């Protein structure tokens, strides 16, 4: 681990675990102790954070809110099968190289100017050989761009589990040493180590080498109280009664035997939907007609639809008890 510069000063947003929570809250992200601790450690140990958990619990949003709250750029790299270094690290600007070759072709007689043997012409051209593989012709992709940021950045590597295993290996150098090696140029070390967030939906097991280099954070569905706070921040117009009831309802749906459980993003969408419909409390008919907002599979809707009356009743009772 060679870092040429001394570690940069800690920004105020990362000074303590509480500061992280407060900063994230200012960007509208309700953090838990686990999340704040992981972010705090990520900065102080200079390690990436690997976030796992079901879809839609705010994994990607954490990176976005971090960048927003600390006012640094967010560099996002979406992973997919077949992603390779020319899309992730860097690529040569072939078109520009081609153009230069053509210019060179036209001007070549000026350059070799009077050289009468092949050897002397080559000797004169030798000075230009590195021209085509210099920084001017390098097209930086997200990983290299993150290394080049001078005032810090958040690098989000989204859904790493979707990429191939070879790509994981490619990431190792970036993640542990914060540097990128371009064979033709050399090693480019980060100006200012980015805060790296990796997310995974666990569609495949990640390699041990990658896990070892990361801090691990697991975000699960939030408990009712936390979920209410999150929805209130995102949908400020929602009335307290509706909020409590809809969160209680979602919590109960998550206990049902369905394939795709509704996550926070669905709860938020549902709250917005209900406001548009001018609802101020849950009733079975309303729930039944908006069920497709929270459930994304036909079989799940079929499973829940007959139980809506009971679930709404239970949710309303849950709320009545706590008040």
């Amino acid at each position, binding site marked *: 681990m060679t870092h040429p510069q001394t570690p940069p000063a800690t920004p105020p947003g990362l000074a303590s675990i509480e500061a992280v929570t407060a900063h994230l809250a200012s960007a509208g992200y309700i953090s838990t102790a686990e999340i704040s601790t992981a972010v705090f*450690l990520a900065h102080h140990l200079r390690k990436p954070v690997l976030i796992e958990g079901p879809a839609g619990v705010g994994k990607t949003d954490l990176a976005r809110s971090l960048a927003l709250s600390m006012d640094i750029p967010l560099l996002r790299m979406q992973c997919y099968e077949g992603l390779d270094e020319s899309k992730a690290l860097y690529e040569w600007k*072939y*078109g520009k190289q081609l153009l230069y070759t053509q210019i060179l072709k036209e001007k070549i007689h000026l350059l070799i100017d009077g050289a009468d043997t092949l050897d002397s012409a080559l000797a004169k051209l030798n000075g230009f050989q590195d021209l085509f593989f210099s920084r001017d012709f390098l097209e930086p992709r997200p990983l290299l761009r993150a290394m080049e940021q001078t005032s810090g950045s958040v690098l989000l590597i989204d859904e790493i589990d979707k990429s191939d*295993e070879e790509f994981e290996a490619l990431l190792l150098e970036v993640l542990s040493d914060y540097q990128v090696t371009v064979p033709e140029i050399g090693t480019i070390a980060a100006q200012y180590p980015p805060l790296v967030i990796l997310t995974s939906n666990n569609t495949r097991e990640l390699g041990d080498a990658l896990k070892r280099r990361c801090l691990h954070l697991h975000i699960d569905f939030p408990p009712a109280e936390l979920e209410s706070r999150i929805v209130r921040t995102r949908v400020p117009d929602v009335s307290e009664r509706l909020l409590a009831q809809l969160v209680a309802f979602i919590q109960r749906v998550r206990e049902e035997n369905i394939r795709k459980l509704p996550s926070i993003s669905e709860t938020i969408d549902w709250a917005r939907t209900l406001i548009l419909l001018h609802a101020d409390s849950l009733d079975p008919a309303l729930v039944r007609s908006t069920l497709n907002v929270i459930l994304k599979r036909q079989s799940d809707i079929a499973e829940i639809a007959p139980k809506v009356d009971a679930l709404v009743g239970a949710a309303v009772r849950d709320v009545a008890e706590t008040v």
Partner: protein
Amino acid sequence: MERTLTQYIRALRAAGAGVSTTEAIDAARTLDVVGYADRTVMKTALGAVLAKSVEEKALHSRLFDLYFHRDAVTEPPPRDEADQAASPTDSEDDEADGDSDSADAFMDLAEAQDAGRTAMALEKAAQAAGTDGIRFASQASYYTRRMLEQMGVKALEQRLIGKLGEHTPEADAEARRMMEARTALQTRARAVVDARFELFGRAATETFLNEMVSERQIGALSRTDMERMKHVVARMAKRLAVKHARRRKVRNRGQLDLRRTLRANAGHDGVPFDVVWRTKRKDRPKIVAVCDVSGSVAQYVRFLLLFLFMLREKVTDLETFAFSNHLEDVGPVLESREFNAAMDHIVMQVGSASTDYGVALEDLETQFGEVIDRRTTVLILGDGRSNHANPRLDLFQQIADRAKRVVWLCPEPEGSWGMGDSCLLQYRPFCTHLSHCATAGDIERAIDEMLLAYD
């Protein structure tokens, strides 16, 4: 504190979490950053560094509470007190004088009102007795005794025998006091040993029992074993899933894909900067499981299907059929119900009659013939006992010709193949693979081999 952390990491490893040296170093750095003051913060922080999966997180949460609970009393003891606690061990070889010393020390500890001091002495004795090495619950009394010996119980017992021989009321009272003291310390030592077992031994015991059960005859499993077996099968399935859920594309280096190369380089005026190689897409394993669910084989089917069901979607396409005297597609039943209930339903619905392999093959070929193609592995689980009905070898050959592989797993040992009404030897020439399959380990190996054929 560093030693405590190292010990804790040892406990995590003993419990089955893979903590590497780098992670151990990270843990130490983490503690430097967050400090030791707040235990909750410490727990969360160590959780982020040491536990890298949901299972490991749960493990960490349990062990941390166990471990750092006792840590409260194990801050490094002051020097002189440590010497005092250690003295019984040193003086054991000394004659009468040393012995009476250690017996006094023992009584002193047992009757001490200072809970912290006793706890510290117990901790010291536990370390000297090597209690961290405990692996099985049955070792608990051995380690308890070792701890007591470290604290000087031998000397005490000698004195006790002496007192009992005196037959005076004072001596008897004294003896009773000593026995009470011994019991008191023994109880406390046992508690310490039990806690150590929870930390260091439980996982090892579990692993051992799991290995035992996976190599035991499925037909001979007891009810408690069955429960354990489900977890074992789940773990095996997960292991296979990780192994075989690799990408399904292979790059054929050296074979240029001309069309895609030209298209990719259209922007560079057709100059091929980006070279695209041909890729071959691998077949996704497709398994058609045909299971005999008549009485004798039903138990094996249960585990085979449980296994296959855990691999489905992620690794394989799966079609399941059950038969006795007729054959049914049981996929929908397994999809819609809880696994155990579904299996009971299937056995009741399909498995009540005597087996007829001929009819089963006929049903498979006429009603579901289209599910078998050249990508398919046909997996048959059955004893091949057709109750003297026509085995329909012609149909079996047709199926075998069409499928990629035919794998037959038989719960009966090889010696009885072909005896009585078994037609197994007649089917054998058409099978790619025929093997005896009696334990969960056998099932795992068979499925592993089957999936390897697709790599």
